[in-house]
């Protein structure tokens, strides 16, 4: 069975890189490039995993995560947060809002893949 991931990220090059890596690993990838409508996109795709960037146009990744956790249908969905801000404050915020895992950009491809696999195992 093909696992389904929704990638919410605004940088086109990073979208391309992550999509390539996950598809190569056998994932079905849906992308969304802004904060607005992200929750609807996730609800529609009903994925096994969400990869969420923090710095998004429209609404921040934290806001999206907060709403996602409060949604009864999506509350237990594994979420991997990616952020380009390497500060401890952001990590704490991510944990508080209920991110399953948290990774700082730039990341190692293999490490990212390992985390993704682990989250849906």
């Amino acid at each position, binding site marked *: 069975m093909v696992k389904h991931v929704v990638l919410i990220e605004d940088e086109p090059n990073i979208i391309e890189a992550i999509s390539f890596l996950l598809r190569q690993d056998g994932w079905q990838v849906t992308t969304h490039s802004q904060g607005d409508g992200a929750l609807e996109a996730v609800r529609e795709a009903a994925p096994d995993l969400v990869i969420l960037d923090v*710095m998004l146009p429209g609404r921040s990744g934290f806001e999206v995560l907060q709403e996602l956790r409060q949604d009864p249908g999506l509350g237990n969905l594994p979420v991997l947060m990616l952020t380009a801000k390497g500060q401890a404050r952001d990590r704490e915020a991510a944990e508080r809002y209920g991110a399953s895992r948290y990774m700082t950009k*730039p990341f190692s491809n293999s490490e990212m893949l390992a985390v993704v696999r682990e989250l849906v195992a």
Partner: protein
Amino acid sequence: MLSFNILVLVATLYVGLLFGVAWAADRRARRGQLGWMRSPVVYTLSLSIYTTAWTFYGAVGSAVRNGFEFLAIYLGPTLVFVGWWWLLRKLVRVGRSQRITSIADLLSSRYGKSAMLAVIVTLLAVVASTPYIALQLQSVARSFSAFASRGGTGIDPPDVNVTAFWLAVGLAVFTILFGTRSIDVNERHHGVVTAVAVEAVVKLVALLTVGIFVVWGIAGGAGDILQRISAADLNTASASGNRWVALTFLSATAIICLPRMFQVTVVENSDERHLETASWAFPLYLFLMSLFVLPIAVVGLAELPAGSNPDLFVLTLPIAHKQEALAMLVFLGGFSSATSMVIVAAIALSTMVSNHIVMPLWLRMRRPTAEISGDVRDVLIRSRRLSIAAILALGYGYFRFTGGSEALASIGLIAFTGVAQMLPVLVGGLFWRGATRRGAIVGLLAGFAVWAYTLFLPSFEGSWLMSADTIANGPWGIALLRPQGLLGIMGVDPLVHALVWSMGVNTVLFILVSLVSFPSPLERMQGVQFVNVFEHSSGQGPKGNVAVEADDLLVMAQRIMGNVTALRLFREVAREQGKGDGLPDPTPEFVDRLERELSGTVGAATAHAMIGQITGGTTISVEDLIAVADEAAQIMEHSAQLEAKSRELARTARQLQVANEKLRELSIQKDSFLSQISHELRTPMTSIRSFAEILRDSRDLSDEQMRRYSGIILDESIRLTRLLDEILDLSVLENGQVTLERATGRLSEVIDKAISATVIPGQDARLKINVSEEADKIEITTDLDRLAQVFINLVSNARKYCDARDPRLQIRVGRDEDRIVIDFIDNGSGIPERHREIVFEKFSRLSDASAAGSAGLGLAISREIMRNLGGRIEYLPGQGGAAFRVTVPVSPPEPSHGVN
């Protein structure tokens, strides 16, 4: 033959003349035409009330009985006036500066405004003056009788008592009419004083005429008279040295302490300098009055039948020689002497009685109400009038009671000794600050008691209160207490005895009690005011005095209201008073107005006190007040300075608060920037690393994929480089190390280049840009690339942040003489006011989420560029959307760095 009826007619006409004079003088005074009425001559003549009927008639009697003794009565006043500088000047100055109305008022003021002292002095004055008034009534009545009794008139001699009665009534009417016409603050009675001056002339002329008639008409001229005098058997033996000294002392005291003399000398004095004239003119007057006393005495003794009353020689000599007109003149002279004394004495006494006894009683009996000021004047005038009537009634009563048996001169001396009791207290009050109220009261009462016991009561010769036996042997037969021989001192003249004892006891007790008692604060203050009166007041006449008052008021008003305001007010009032550029008169209206104006500055109570001090009795000197005003002004200035300082501090605090707020926001911005710069660096690095790994690890990539991924790595590397360039650029610009490439170009070209640089290929440009046509016409010389960099930033910001549905950017261009202004105005929601400064700070972005693809360095760099170009960039509020104004100088600034 002069009929008695003609005598009555002439007397009546004379009185009518006096009425006319008094009335005319009063009217002139009321119109302010004082003129000659304020001359030193009138003042000196008014002093002549010292020479009453007692001296007019009695001096001759005294000469007959006691030889030269009568001269002592003139010597005392002469000494006082010649030495005016020492005592009278001070007395008059105090009287003026304290607005003294009577001797009772003076002593009361000096001793802490003591009401009790005022009552004592008033009673003493009334008791001592009553016999004196009786004496005047008697002398006029007797002179009437002298006329009538010479027979041949067909009319019975009128009853002396009836004459005296009607005289008393007439004098009461005159005094009431002219003595209480108005209640003047100064208690000056111009009408009365003028009438008194006229009477003074009449009595002098009368006496001189009689003297000339006697010397050259009856006797054989001056030489004959001198011979007769030396031959005459005048009773010179009794004129002991003691008595001489005593009489001189008494008369000197009387001229100061007699209520009526105090009235004319001090109260009616309108100018201190008049004393200077009076100091020689009044002794001269007295000299003339006494010149013919001895001739008349010796001629009278020789010519008139034995047993004739020497007290009437002045009148009976002309009658005996059938000189009717001269006799009439003498009669008028005596009449003048008597009436002027009674009138002035009645005024002085009524002032004291009403001010110190009637009014206080009336006020105490009334229930206190707020509105008593209206009828107080009426009550005051009524009480004055009643007092005058009562005093004359007392005088008449005394006259009837004693039956006119006493020799005139001795009544006068008894009265003199009575009022002399005030002298220690008066002189002590003027020269000794240590004198106290208690001392004054005790001294006065003791002196008065001794006087009554040793002189006044014995003068009734056993007919009243004190029996003849007591007088002869002492009370209960105790010889040591004999009224005229206390402690067994016998053989002394009763007058000298009484004078020495009363004055001695009085003075000693006054000094002793003053030394052991403590003055109240008010007493102390008044003491200083009296003793140092010359340091606290000015001695100008009333004209000068008015000016000085207005001067003082102006000085004070200037201190309090400020120069300009005070001068304006005074000039305005002066114009209203028709005084042109001079100082206004301190009329009640003006003083009220000034007080109101001042109360606006210093408060009503203070203003009232200050004005009161200057216009009313001066309890505190003007200098003291000015010192107070200075202090107040200093305090006001200090508080103004403090206010200014605290305003300044508040301003600094606000500035600090603003700076602090800015710092706080900057600190948040700094944190935000660290995240931002991290994000900006990590984002391209993420792509680079990820694709680098893909290229390394993936074996089955197509050529096309490999090229594309390598291209991404390259682009992101360039993006990283650009970011680092920007940071470096900003750093260079901030340090002023920038090199400007100056060139001249059309402004529109610069703008177009900037707009096209912001268009991202492949994206549809939603932002519509409108550039005003002016831009075509403007040539500009500057670093065109740097300017374009600023424009690019502004246009791309508009592209990024303009949140309107239909975004538009208006680029407006304008120029004046030395600068070009380019405004960039979009139709978005603009920048909130609190962010308008911060947008220009480096690394600032208003929110994380809205700033995709920017490091937030654009405006910071733009500002630095404009600074380097000699212009500026600023937010332009109130334009609807976000609006920035770029200002560039037409001619570029001198290059500071780097251009070779």
